[in-house]
């Protein structure tokens, strides 16, 4: 009886994880990306619960997951993590296919594009903090342009440009530092 349970690579058994890894070499990547996507989703929903002093000042904590995916698994992984967060996040907070959803997904995609391009073009140039600021900035710029095209065809909206530029630096910095600390922790965990 005892030896039977020991040798069986069933659920919960010691062999499960190694078996899984050898059978599916991409399994680890898949599991980690799924984990990052859910972390990003939770951060995104959680952030929506925090009252904001100014409607345009949003830290963008969900981007921490995208940054981690970008640095650990490259631009493809980051794309998946971002896409899942935007889609499921909008379903969770009930903005799916609303005008706000257009702005939020457009911002997220612009942010991913710029971060992936900059990360690929200068892999050693910018740290995760710098990439995060690039992303926040692209996110804000895309939202402003989309808002101008879709919601308000008024020149008054450009009055928000300086605010968006400045808040992009601040929020990108905060998100980037959070991602940096997490990456350092992960590195330490791998060395042990």
């Amino acid at each position, binding site marked *: 009886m005892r030896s039977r349970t020991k040798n069986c690579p069933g659920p919960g058994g010691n062999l499960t994880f190694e078996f899984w890894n050898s059978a599916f070499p991409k399994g680890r990547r898949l599991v980690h990306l799924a984990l990052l996507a859910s972390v990003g989703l939770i951060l995104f929903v959680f952030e929506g619960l925090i009252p904001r002093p100014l*409607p345009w000042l949003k830290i963008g904590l969900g981007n921490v997951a995208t940054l981690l995916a970008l640095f650990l698994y490259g631009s493809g992984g980051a794309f998946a993590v971002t896409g899942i967060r935007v889609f499921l996040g909008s379903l969770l907070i009930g903005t799916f296919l609303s005008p*706000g959803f257009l702005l939020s997904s457009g911002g997220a995609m612009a942010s991913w594009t710029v971060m992936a391009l900059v990360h690929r073009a*200068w892999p050693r*140039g910018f740290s995760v*903090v710098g990439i995060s600021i690039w992303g926040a900035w692209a996110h804000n710029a895309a939202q402003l342009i989309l808002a101008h095209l879709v919601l*308000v065809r008024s020149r008054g909206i450009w009055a928000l440009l300086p605010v968006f530029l*400045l808040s*992009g630096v601040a929020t990108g910095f905060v998100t980037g530092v959070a991602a940096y600390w997490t990456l350092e922790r992960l590195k330490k965990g791998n060395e042990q």
Partner: protein
Amino acid sequence: MLTLSDKILIGVLLLLSSLSFLALAAFRGPGQTVVVEQDGKVMARRSIADEDTLRIEGPLGVTTIEIAEGKARVLDAPCPHQLCVKTGAILKAGAMVVCVPNRVVVRIEGHPKDGVDAVTR
């Protein structure tokens, strides 16, 4: 934590945003409407071209606001520091005079389409 490129990026973006703040202040359009609020409630709306004197009752007493020659200012206030009186006359869209003790806000609105239309989450 920060590389050299990071620092350059932050510096350039901070410079850009402060420059755009200045540029925007310089090109800010003329005001259209004077809005007077007391405790968050709009008490009066006047065109900036009007000539009028408004008396607004607050917790400390009466704040007197004068609209004249396309400008608005607080003439007299019951607050201790008189900051609202010292702010002087305002005329451009987005400018405001605030009296915290008497909870009076005088602000100037520009084009009616300015302002928040939607908030994304």
